[in-house]
């Protein structure tokens, strides 16, 4: 079941921006990046406010990393503008970058150096001469203290990911940009990073720009989010609004398909029926409040229900663009 993208945007989650928001930390306007004929990012607009955990969601190849690379001044936009901390990135590059900690894609480090040496070097590049104590505290924060003296070439991917987070936090940045930070982590690691991100916002009032291709990961921690696809933002808003105000696709597993077809066709739910599948399932688009009504209706008309499952419209929609 796939909604038409255009209808979906208009009916449920219209794009909205607070262009003149005084608290905005990142403002991206009409951002485009082309590689030859290929448009990796096209007309992207987004605003991240101070204190946000902002989910930057999209399937692989949607343009997330390209956007982050532009945000980190690693690649130049073809057109459009990026402002961070209220200043244009192009003209205030160094000033802005000193306030950002980031993981950009894979966590690559100098493999021939130890974790501690890597952090010391990166600290110096940020004009901070870190003491061993400070470095150890950073490593402890991500559970790598006991490997401080180990060369990074001996680290697993998950450990490098943790080290990536440590280096992003090293200079106490105001804005933290995390590109798929839980990639390669085990479930415990994922939980720890999630908790760390939440702590960074609640205890240190950091703003976090979190890129991911996993919707549940974003919805667990982000307060606002955007979904991008093919380089363009398709939905932006608060996570609770996007997730809770939407309709659900409810699947009723029933015992009498023919009877259900007849009674539903003449019922108040007729326009909500999305289809019937060969495995005795009927799919109905319903709000959360109406699931009980529909269940009662079916049972009252003698339809046995073996099971009920639901998929949120947003999730369905996100899966559809991910699949495509």
């Amino acid at each position: 079941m796939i909604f038409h993208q255009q209808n979906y945007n208009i009916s449920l989650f219209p794009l909205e921006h607070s262009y003149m928001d005084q608290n905005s930390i990142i403002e991206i306007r009409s951002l485009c990046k082309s590689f030859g004929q290929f448009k990796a990012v096209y007309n992207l607009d987004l605003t991240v406010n101070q204190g946000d955990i902002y989910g930057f969601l999209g399937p692989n190849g949607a343009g997330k990393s390209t956007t982050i690379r532009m945000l980190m001044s690693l690649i130049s936009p073809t057109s459009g503008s990026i402002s961070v901390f209220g200043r244009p990135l192009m003209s205030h590059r160094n000033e802005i970058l000193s306030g950002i900690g980031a993981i950009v894609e894979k966590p690559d480090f100098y493999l021939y150096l130890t974790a501690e040496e890597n952090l010391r070097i990166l600290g110096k590049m940020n004009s901070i001469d870190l003491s061993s104590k400070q470095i150890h505290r950073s490593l402890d924060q991500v559970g790598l203290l006991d490997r401080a003296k180990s060369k990074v070439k001996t680290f697993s991917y998950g450990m490098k990911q943790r080290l990536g987070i440590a280096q992003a936090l090293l200079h106490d940045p105001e804005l933290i940009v995390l590109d798929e930070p839980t990639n390669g982590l085990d479930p415990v690691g994922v939980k720890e990073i999630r908790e760390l991100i939440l702590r960074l916002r609640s205890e240190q009032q950091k703003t976090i720009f979190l890129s991911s291709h996993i919707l549940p990961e974003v919805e667990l921690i982000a307060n606002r989010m955007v979904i991008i696809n093919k380089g363009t933002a398709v939905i932006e808003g608060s996570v609770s609004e996007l997730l809770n105000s939407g309709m659900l696709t409810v699947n009723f597993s029933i015992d009498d398909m023919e009877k259900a077809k007849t009674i539903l066709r003449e019922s108040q739910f007729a326009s909500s029926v999305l289809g019937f599948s060969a495995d005795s399932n009927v799919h109905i688009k319903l709000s959360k409040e109406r699931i009980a009504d529909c269940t009662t209706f079916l049972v009252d008309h003698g339809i046995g229900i073996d099971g009920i499952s639901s998929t949120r419209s947003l999730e369905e929609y996100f899966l559809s663009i991910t699949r495509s």
Partner: protein
Amino acid sequence: MFFTVLSIELSKIFSKGRSYIGFGAITILVPIVQAAMYSEGEAYFGLFTQGLQQQFSFTGTFLNGYLIAFVVLQSLLVHVPLLVTLVAGDMLAGEATGGTYRLLFSRPVSRHTIVLAKYSAALLYTIGLIAWMSLLSMGLSLLLFGSGELFIVSSSITVLQKEDILWRFGYAYLFGILSMSTVASIAFMFSALVENSIGPIAMTMAIIIVFTIISALDAGFIKDVKYLLFTNHLISWRLFFEETVPVDRILLSTWVLGGHSIASLLIALFVIVKKDILS
């Protein structure tokens, strides 16, 4: 910030095993040459000057520390380019291969500063390598063989007096640094152009070989422009051992080598500043 990045780059260079290959090779090769000269030197130079001995009468020995240092300088400057490119060619390409361009260029330091610091680090490494070579070849040779007159046979025979030699070696080593810095600069430029560490080494060595072959040709327009090829000037350090040092030729070599170095640096700067970091 430049000096901070420079110190970081130097510490990175000396944390990598490949950076010691050059020092190791020189440390092994120079004593081997010296040992060979110590045991077989007299016979070797006797054979070498056989023709001359039929026309001239020689007293004493040619074999001394200065001659050994000269031989080592001559032989090692053929191989040192490879040792220099191992490090200079890795300065930028190594970051691309390791994916650390992202770490480096997302810091609040301009790309100009990073490139200039990396270039300076590569030059300091080159200086260190030549200094080590001079220390071993000159210091150890003088210790083992003592000093004396320097007898050089090329297109003519030059005999330099003992007290007229040391300054020539000083300038020759300085010129050696300039030559090898040019090689390092070219490797550095290739390092900015490609994203693997082998490419710059292969390209630099290929350029040296091709230019050397072209330099040997005397045909047509090549004859008129070959003085512009840097390979033609890499061994101009030998000019310091002519009885009257040809300052004009040395200046020309300095200009050509310096020009190649500056042009290489500017190309590397332009490429990196404009580069989209996609690795």
